[in-house]
């Protein structure tokens, strides 16, 4: 038997053992545990603000930790920092490459980052001395498009790429600290745990992986989706993971029991999930879809309890503010909307 055949057999045997280990701890389901919980009543939210200014499709948005400012990225070649309450543009940053696919706000509020088909992650300092916003670093090493980026601090950022890897960068030196390899398809999305010790990635190999930021190892792999995972997020308590896929479903995975808990799906929904965000308590999951809508799910009962309709094209990104007070959606129709 060739070495490759041998290794394949070993891998399959290990996967079977993992499946058995998961079954061994599966002594209840979410349906059973939440049987006594009443479904949340109909959730209705209104558009409170529309942020107008982008001239092309919006691909990404991210809230600042102050729950007031947010940043958006559009293929009109601009990053815009908005005051979501006044709808004023605080900064309009022209990009070298207009093919942007992701953006992020640093927890400190000092930096924003973006990247896309240029394969790079560009870091911008919003608090420069002369008031001008300039490129502070260009992080180049990925051999594929940048799909997502998230700051750990002002000195570290994690990126995910179409080259199937994620990288932890040292922003000051502009170099790679750790590379996270293992996915067998483009990495599409990532999210950092509330305590900043882990991150999760969703990929076109239909799996989500949990990574230890410090030692670079993949701790857990979650399969089950039948198509690309486009969106991923941590449940607010950091102990579960939510994924959204082209297979038209979202799934909830338990990190401690290492298994899928439930699927959020409806026979009437046949288009892909592009983005997702949990509410503050995790009871609601807001998910953006290719059919221009956002569906609101009761996370414990897996029932649809509301929808946000108002965009004229695909909802490409969604975020709930840190204080849980507002949801922001960004769309290919070039507008962002604030809902609550």
């Amino acid at each position, binding site marked *: 038997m060739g070495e490759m055949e041998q290794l394949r057999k070993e891998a399959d045997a290990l996967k079977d053992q993992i499946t058995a280990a998961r079954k061994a701890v599966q002594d209840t389901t979410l349906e059973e545990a939440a049987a006594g919980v009443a479904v949340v009543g109909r959730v209705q939210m209104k558009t409170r603000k529309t942020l107008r200014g982008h001239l092309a499709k919006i691909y990404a948005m991210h809230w600042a930790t102050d729950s007031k400012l947010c940043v958006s990225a559009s293929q009109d070649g601009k990053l815009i920092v908005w005051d979501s309450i006044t709808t004023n543009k605080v900064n309009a940053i022209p990009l070298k490459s207009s093919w942007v696919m992701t953006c992020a706000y640093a927890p400190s509020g000092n930096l924003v980052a973006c990247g896309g088909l240029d394969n790079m992650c560009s870091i911008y300092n919003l608090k420069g001395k002369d008031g001008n916003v300039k490129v502070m670093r260009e992080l180049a090493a990925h051999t594929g498009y940048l799909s997502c980026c998230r700051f750990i601090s002002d000195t570290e950022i994690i990126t995910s790429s179409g080259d199937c890897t994620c990288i932890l960068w040292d922003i000051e030196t502009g170099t790679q600290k750790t590379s996270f390899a293992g996915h067998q398809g483009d990495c599409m999305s990532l999210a950092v745990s509330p305590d900043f010790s882990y991150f999760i990635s969703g990929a076109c190999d239909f799996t989500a992986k949990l990574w230890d930021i410090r030692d670079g190892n993949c701790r857990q792999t979650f399969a089950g989706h039948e198509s690309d995972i486009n969106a991923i997020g941590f449940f607010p308590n950091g102990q579960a993971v939510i994924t959204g896929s082209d297979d038209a479903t979202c799934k909830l995975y338990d990190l401690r029991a290492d298994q899928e808990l439930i699927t959020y799906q409806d026979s009437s929904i046949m288009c892909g999930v592009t983005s997702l965000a949990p509410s503050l308590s995790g*009871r609601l999951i807001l998910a953006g879809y290719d059919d221009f809508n956002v569906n609101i799910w009761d996370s414990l009962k897996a029932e649809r309890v509301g929808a946000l309709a108002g965009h004229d094209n695909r909802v490409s990104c969604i975020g709930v503010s840190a204080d849980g007070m507002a949801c922001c959606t960004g769309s290919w129709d070039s507008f962002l909307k604030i809902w609550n």
Partner: protein
Amino acid sequence: MEELDVPQMKREVESLQRQLGMGREKASVTVTELVKWVEGGYCEDPFLNPELMRANPWVEKSKCVIL
């Protein structure tokens, strides 16, 4: 999905061995705690508790101001 070469396959096997070794907790414990945590946060969730949304910064205050 890409085809792996031998070194990549070796790393995949190592990774699976590590992943197998993790300590898994019983779902009856973890899922019950998850449900409890979510229910416990209900009153603090502005999307669920209308009281918290009374002072909504994104809603225009009344158009007239008494000077």
